[in-house]
């Protein structure tokens, strides 16, 4: 008898094991850590052995072997060979600060009616402090000449300052000053020839400090990305792939791939296999739409959830980012003087000229459906001041095949609006008549709106606003991607806000659960009572 039992058990175990192995090759066949995710293989292949090379040494270029006295002269030297560069560049948003190809259309763009809830408006390039990020010489805006070196020079040399000095030394009668000018010009010449493709710092000089300071604006772009490690960003990490920005933000005729206000970065997601000349701006470009191992449930997610949603667990992981800016608190004085108060992270929490701020680090994104497009409320759009105004808000619809659930930084703000026209206002901030000097908001709005040619009633108040920014940089190594239960969990799901789909682990039907559990409990109680009954009646046996 015993033999039989043992034999049966053995048989059963063997059979079950055999069936499992037979039916589930992945159980047995996939060794842990084997790196066979197709998406990684593809991407590795795509960037394999692609060292940049050039046929030109700018140190040997006769056109650059000159004593420059102005920025414009340098640019002309560039153009003497790169004849179309400036013409191309003049058509781009980097130059015009207008989103539309029709450059008389002022609707979107920071030289147009676009506003945000940071420094609010670019005031049609009239606010000169904004122009420190315009790629022209000497803050002349579109009136000036393109400054090629802003993006194509690796020397770190301050050309504008040096050239200003050269000019003033040359004007001087003193021969010693002329000597100094000559020396400076030698330095300039040396620096000018250090021509490169844009590196992370070139782009970062403006894009890491958007909103007026390091990490103010984006949350996934700050100076920590100049030399990141791969924990912060697997693609850009110097110990990782060491990508520059243009590795993904590919370029045609100086137009750089990326979202432009309401325009998505790409019409449709394509991998390089489908279209090898498509911009490499989406994750799918290199990783394909089915990047995970073949038997992985993750591949079933990619039609609904963006890569970024799981692979960027949090943003501002090294430097803090600004999460709130309240303009209504401006103007407070300490001892009759404007002041700054620093808070956590050594970042200002109050500035008389700017108002109140909140900063955060390791921020968990908010998630929305997003098709790559953002709606944008401009200074020319009517708002409802009774509600929080969504200055920038993702567009997306469950039924749209381009839409994914995507992570966002939502920056909250309080900014001036016109109480009569119900429109957001565009105060001018810098300069001798700007708000930062006068602290007179009404006057600053008057002047600011005039730069845009938009009317102002003379009455303003402050309205709460939100500004959404897609989170797409700071992709973490795969081991730091989100666990299932960051979303598939009852109470604390990151996707609590997305209610138009059923998610196992997060969702349930109360009725089903109630009926089910009552029946389970009922069975338990019945069995218990029955058993007790049998025990006490001793199955009717009388001893």
């Amino acid at each position, binding site marked *: 008898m015993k033999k039989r039992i043992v034999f049966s058990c053995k048989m059963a175990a063997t059979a079950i094991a055999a069936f499992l192995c037979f039916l589930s090759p992945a159980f047995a066949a996939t060794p842990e850590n084997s790196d066979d995710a197709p998406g990684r293989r593809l991407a590795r292949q795509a960037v394999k052995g692609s060292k940049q090379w050039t046929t030109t040494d700018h140190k040997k270029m006769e056109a650059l072997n000159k004593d420059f006295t102005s920025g414009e002269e340098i640019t002309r030297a560039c153009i003497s060979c790169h004849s179309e560069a400036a013409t191309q560049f003049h058509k781009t948003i980097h130059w015009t600060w207008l989103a539309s190809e029709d450059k008389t259309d002022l609707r979107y763009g920071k030289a147009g009616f676009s506003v945000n809830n940071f420094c609010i408006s670019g005031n049609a390039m009239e606010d000169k402090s904004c122009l420190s990020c315009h790629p022209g010489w000497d803050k002349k805006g579109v009136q000036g000449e393109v400054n090629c070196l802003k993006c194509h020079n690796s020397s770190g040399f301050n050309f504008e300052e040096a050239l200003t000095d050269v000019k003033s030394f040359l004007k001087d009668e003193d021969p010693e000053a002329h000597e100094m000018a000559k020396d400076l010009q030698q330095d300039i010449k040396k620096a000018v020839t250090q021509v490169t493709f844009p590196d992370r710092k070139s782009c970062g000089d403006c894009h890491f400090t958007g909103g007026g300071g390091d990490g103010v604006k984006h949350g996934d772009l700050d100076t920590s990305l100049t030399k990141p490690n791969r924990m912060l960003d697997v693609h850009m990490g110097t110990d990782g792939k060491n990508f520059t920005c243009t590795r993904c933000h590919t370029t045609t005729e100086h137009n750089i791939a990326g979202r432009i206000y309401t325009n998505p970065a790409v019409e449709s997601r394509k991998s390089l296999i489908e279209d090898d000349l498509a911009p490499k701006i989406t994750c799918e470009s290199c990783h394909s739409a089915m990047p995970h191992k073949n038997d992985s449930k993750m591949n079933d997610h990619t039609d609904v959830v963006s890569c970024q949603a799981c692979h960027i667990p949090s943003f501002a992981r090294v430097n803090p980012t600004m999460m709130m800016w309240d303009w209504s608190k401006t103007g407070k004085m300490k001892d009759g003087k404007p002041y700054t108060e620093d808070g956590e992270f050594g970042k200002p929490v109050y500035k008389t000229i700017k108002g109140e701020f909140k900063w955060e680090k390791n921020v968990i994104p908010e998630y929305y459906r997003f098709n790559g497009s953002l709606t944008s409320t401009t200074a020319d759009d009517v708002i409802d001041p009774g509600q929080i105004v969504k200055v920038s808000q993702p567009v997306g619809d469950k039924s749209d095949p381009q839409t994914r659930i995507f992570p966002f930084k939502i920056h909250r703000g309080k900014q001036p609006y016109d109480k009569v026209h119900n429109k957001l206002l565009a105060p001018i901030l810098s300069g001798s008549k700007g708000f930062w000097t006068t602290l007179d908001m009404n006057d600053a709005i008057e002047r600011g709106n005039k730069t845009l040619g938009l009317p102002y009633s003379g009455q303003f108040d402050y309205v709460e606003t939100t500004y959404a920014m897609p989170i797409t940089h700071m992709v973490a190594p795969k081991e730091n991607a989100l666990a299932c239960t960051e979303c598939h969990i009852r109470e604390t799901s990151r996707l609590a806000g997305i209610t138009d789909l059923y998610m196992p682990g997060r969702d349930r039907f109360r009725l089903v659960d109630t009926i089910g559990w009552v029946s*389970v409990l009922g069975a338990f109680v019945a069995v218990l009572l029955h058993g007790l009954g049998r025990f006490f009646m001793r199955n009717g046996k009388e001893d």
Partner: protein
Amino acid sequence: MTDQKTIKIYLYTRFERLWHWFQAAVVITLIITGLEIHGTYSFLGFKTAVRIHNYIGLTWLTLFAFFVFWLFTTGEWRQYIPTTKRLFSVVRYYAWDIFQGKPHPVQKSTHAKHNPLQRLAYLGISAMLLPVQMVTGLLYYLYNDLQGFFALSVLAGIHTLIALFLLNFLIIHLYMITTGHSVLGHVAGMVTGWEEVTDTTAIEDWETKAVRKN
């Protein structure tokens, strides 16, 4: 009871026993992992639970097809034909007589392994709950490839409800096996195949319909 003699009969073939214990393990595993996926508790971790649930679920689904094949080729399916005859006395037995130590009104035999109440219960489970659970499970598994076909929420609702009904069954089932000649009598029967039964009257004709008469 004392005056009745008990005999041992070979009730369950090796295949049946194997299938029974395999299915027991499968269903218990599926309930444990399923309820974790449902968010009732965390135990193995969501990812592991999903993986095990899917592998076991699909394995079982495949093997169940063989089981159905066996059921029909051997004619064993007749064991599950529902009958109301003596159903009431079985109900009365469990509700009342069992406390008095009266004998079970229906005896097991190789041709009638299940009493009328069992037949009804097992038919309900095997013919209704399990297939529906398997079908909803498979559709759930294939949901991404069959989009727009049905609502995931409906599927999940049915799948969860039946999961809990099966848990209900499991509790009652585990209890019922203690009602044999000895507390572990039925367990031994399902392990060895040999079950101790009371040697009473001959099996009546209506109970042996499972045997072909010609």
